């Protein structure tokens, strides 16, 4: 026995439609949570990551003992949370003796784990420790520049994956139009060794230069940390191929009120609202009538009057 369930409110219907699979997708939301134990640095990292991604991130504050991303059974909770919050990237932090200050960045495809990369955090500097002119502080939700430096990002497979994950994490929404005044942040990632990446967040200062293109100056504002690659899990080839598939055609926009005919060609329909002739009040001319016009009118009336008199006389 099956039952059809449809949402009873318009709001619920809109939420469901927003979460449905689409041709052009919404920006990925990030789920930030932590495991059984966290250190001070790790909780600071998670909090600052949440602040950086404020509009598109959800932070869970309770500890989750049964989440073990790299074990086969330990992902069910993560997948459940991903389904409930509609988040496709997650950042899971934990602190153990064997893996201190551990951060697992992972992505989901259809709310199942797609790939994982585990990094250790070293030399973390919180955004509160940076002092800068508050006027250049980046605004929440602005689209960032992302820069990668180092040959490691091309040669080492783990760094390649990390590059992809960091791009996905920091990218935000894909937009068609960009407001140039709203560019105020940049993420700089440098591969300082085949296993270590230095990540920092800077604010952008635009300075006058001779041309239209302003001169860029970066000022470190945000958290900066060293990421040490630990473990990683690449997606299966089949899953990767499916996830990378994109449909080439753009969604057809319905063009209304236009039809094409072989005989008549392209025709459009225009709808004009009803013109109530006779109901609208006539314009009031008494105010604006100038003296010459008034006199002219008087003359005209006089002539007509005399003409009519003449007619009468003749009759």
């Amino acid at each position, binding site marked *: *026995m*099956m*039952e*059809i*369930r*449809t*949402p009873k409110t318009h709001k619920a*219907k809109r939420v*469901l*439609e927003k*979460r*449905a*699979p*689409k041709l052009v*997708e919404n920006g*990925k939301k990030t789920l930030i949570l932590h495991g059984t134990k966290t250190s001070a640095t790790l909780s600071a990292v998670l909090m600052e990551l949440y602040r950086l991604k404020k509009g598109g991130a959800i932070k869970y504050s309770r500890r989750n003992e049964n989440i073990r991303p790299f074990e086969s059974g330990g992902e069910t909770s993560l997948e459940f949370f991903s389904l409930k919050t509609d988040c*496709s990237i997650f950042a899971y932090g934990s602190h153990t003796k064997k893996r201190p200050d551990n951060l697992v960045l992972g*992505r989901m*495809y*259809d709310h199942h784990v*797609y790939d994982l990369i585990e990094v250790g955090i070293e030399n973390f500097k919180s955004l509160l420790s940076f002092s800068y002119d508050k006027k250049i502080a980046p605004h929440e939700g602005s689209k*960032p*520049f*992302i*820069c*990668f*430096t*180092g*040959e490691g*990002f091309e040669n080492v497979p783990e760094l390649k994956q990390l*590059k*992809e994950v960091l*791009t*996905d994490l920091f*990218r935000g929404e*894909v*937009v068609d*139009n*960009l*407001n*140039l*005044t*709203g*560019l105020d942040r*940049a993420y*700089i990632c*440098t591969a*300082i060794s085949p296993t270590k990446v*230095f990540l*920092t967040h*800077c604010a*952008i200062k635009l300075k006058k230069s001779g041309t*239209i*293109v*302003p001169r*860029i100056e*970066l000022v*470190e504002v945000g958290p900066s940390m060293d990421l040490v690659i630990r473990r990683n899990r690449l997606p299966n080839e089949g899953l990767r191929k499916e996830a*990378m*598939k994109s449909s080439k055609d753009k969604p057809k926009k319905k063009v209304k009120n236009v039809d094409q005919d072989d005989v008549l060609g392209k025709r459009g329909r225009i709808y004009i609202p009803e013109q109530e002739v006779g109901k609208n009040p006539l314009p009031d001319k008494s105010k604006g009538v100038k003296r010459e016009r008034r006199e002219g009118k008087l003359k005209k009336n006089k002539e007509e009057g005399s003409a009519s008199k003449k007619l009468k006389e003749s009759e």
Partner: protein
Amino acid sequence: MDMETDQIYQVDVGNLLAFNSNHRFPAAPSSREELVKECVTEGTKLVQAIADTLFNFPSTETSDGPLVQLPPPTTKLPREKHLPRPKPPTKWEEFALKKGIQKRKKDKIVYDETTDKFKRRHGYDRVNDDNDIPIIEAKASDEPGEDPFAKRLDDKKKRVGKQEKNRLQNLKTAAKAGALPSHVQLAATALPISGTKAQPQKIGKEALGDVAGLAATSTASGGKFDKKLPGEKPPKKQGKHHKYLPVVPRHGGVDEEKEQTNKVLGKLLSKHSHEILNVGKAINMYNDKKEKKKSGRSDKLKAKKDITKKKPYANKADK
């Protein structure tokens, strides 16, 4: 994007992304600050490269600032969810395709023959409203006792039910193909017992507590020492609830028993005692008691006289 030096950066303007694959750190950076400085300078160069292309795009002026059309991103990133799957055609769509039936757009306003007016197709005062039919002519095939109006309603109900069933079937095939519309969910309800249509009743919280209490009293100690589950409430007191007043009043305290009896007496002997006392009921009780006394004992306890048995010397006095 070419720079003055040999370095060529891979720039993805759609993502505001730049990658410099040719940088190599000179031997070992002396200190942390040096390293950080160098990273930031390299980053500045990359951001400048992106900005060069970005600011050279044709921009439109808006109230917020210059708006620029971004090209689509070139780096391929995996999708969040699968591509929307095509919906399988419904039973009607298949049939229409086979027969070549075209969809025709229906007008909202239709001409009504009976009233010579234009009426709407659906809604208030519609064209072929079922409730407006005053007379249904009898046909030869009609049975004498049948109500044609009720029959019409019945037919409509059946049609609606059939349509719902077909809709469910169509949604099931769509769900099988993975193309269920986003706002619809198919939920499995409870299975009915074969033969009946009744669905099992859900037991409420209080009923469950009562049943648990009953089960507890069947133990030797009346359920007092049973291990309680988390969240289980202590059992309600069974039986009659009596509050017995102390026989001897407390020193200097009020005599509660005396108070109680005084209260009752007061109520009986007061001006409005007839309102408290149900005279009719009292009379009935008195009469019943009197009759019971007359008959001796209760009829049930008394041995019944067997009237079939003849008393041997009952009417001997006549002779």
